């Protein structure tokens, strides 16, 4: 019984250590410079860092297929960028505070497009 408890605790420790090693800053400099950060849910960010925040050009890839390539400011999607949706749809244009804000084009996976001004993720008619 004692052996079993020891085995379970030891396995948990090894798993936690392995998980901890697979997340965090994996390459480069994630404080000030260029680096790659891997989050616990396997989301990755590769790009520029300023004062430990995502700032400048970078690419954020979510495990479920969303990919944002573009400008970041204070760790948020800000500036010009393109978001790829998992089904192949894209939005290319201006971003502010992590949302489509400004001029941009939304292209559905079937090629249909909507071009114009966006405010907080909504198209302004």
């Amino acid at each position, binding site marked *: 019984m004692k052996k079993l408890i020891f085995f379970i605790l030891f396995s948990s420790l090894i798993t936690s250590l392995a998980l901890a090693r697979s997340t965090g800053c994996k390459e480069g400099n994630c404080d000030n410079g260029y680096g790659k950060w891997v989050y616990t*849910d396997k989301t990755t960010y590769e790009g520029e860092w300023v004062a430990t925040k995502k700032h400048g050009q970078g690419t954020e890839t979510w495990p*479920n297929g969303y990919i944002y390539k573009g400008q970041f400011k204070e760790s948020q999607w800000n500036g010009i960028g393109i978001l790829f949706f*998992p*089904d*192949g*749809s894209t939005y290319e244009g201006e971003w502010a505070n992590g949302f489509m804000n400004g001029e941009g084009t*939304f292209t559905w996976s079937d090629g249909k497009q909507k071009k114009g001004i966006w405010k907080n*993720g*909504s198209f302004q008619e």
Partner: protein
Amino acid sequence: MEVSKNSFKTLSEPVKQFGGLVGIIILIFLTFFVLNNIFGEGDELVAKMKIEEERIAQERKLNKLISSLPSGVLVSFDGTDNFKLSDELYEAVCKATKLIPQRAIMGANFLNFRAHEIYTINGNKIDETFVKWDDEKNKCFAGFVVSGNNVGVDETVKVSGEALSFLSTGIDTRVYFIKNF
């Protein structure tokens, strides 16, 4: 009365014991009959049990199917390297899926700013999630409800859309992409 009492006394011991046994059995049957009439649900209960049995059988079938799927992302559309679900599998996976992870919710919130705002201020709390198969449209729909009740905001937003991809963990399946645009 006296005569029957005397005639009972004259019976042999095995016959008396057998009679007693029969009497007890009749008493038990009568007791259950009375109790069943008072508390029992009769046919209604049998019908409920049948439905439950069917549900369990269906669940076992779905679990078997899920354990046979490859681990990773399962999609219902073309154009990716992920495992493409057939129409039949898409329906089965939809019916077996109950969970919606945070990234799928965050993705759906890109097109619903108010839902994102409430989700942020309420501490990423989801009131309700749902995954439903629509027989008429032959599509899987998933969604969630966020409310700000826990932080004094009397507002509820429901976000829903077509569930186009799933994550198979080998143990269960989760909605991975809700297309709400």
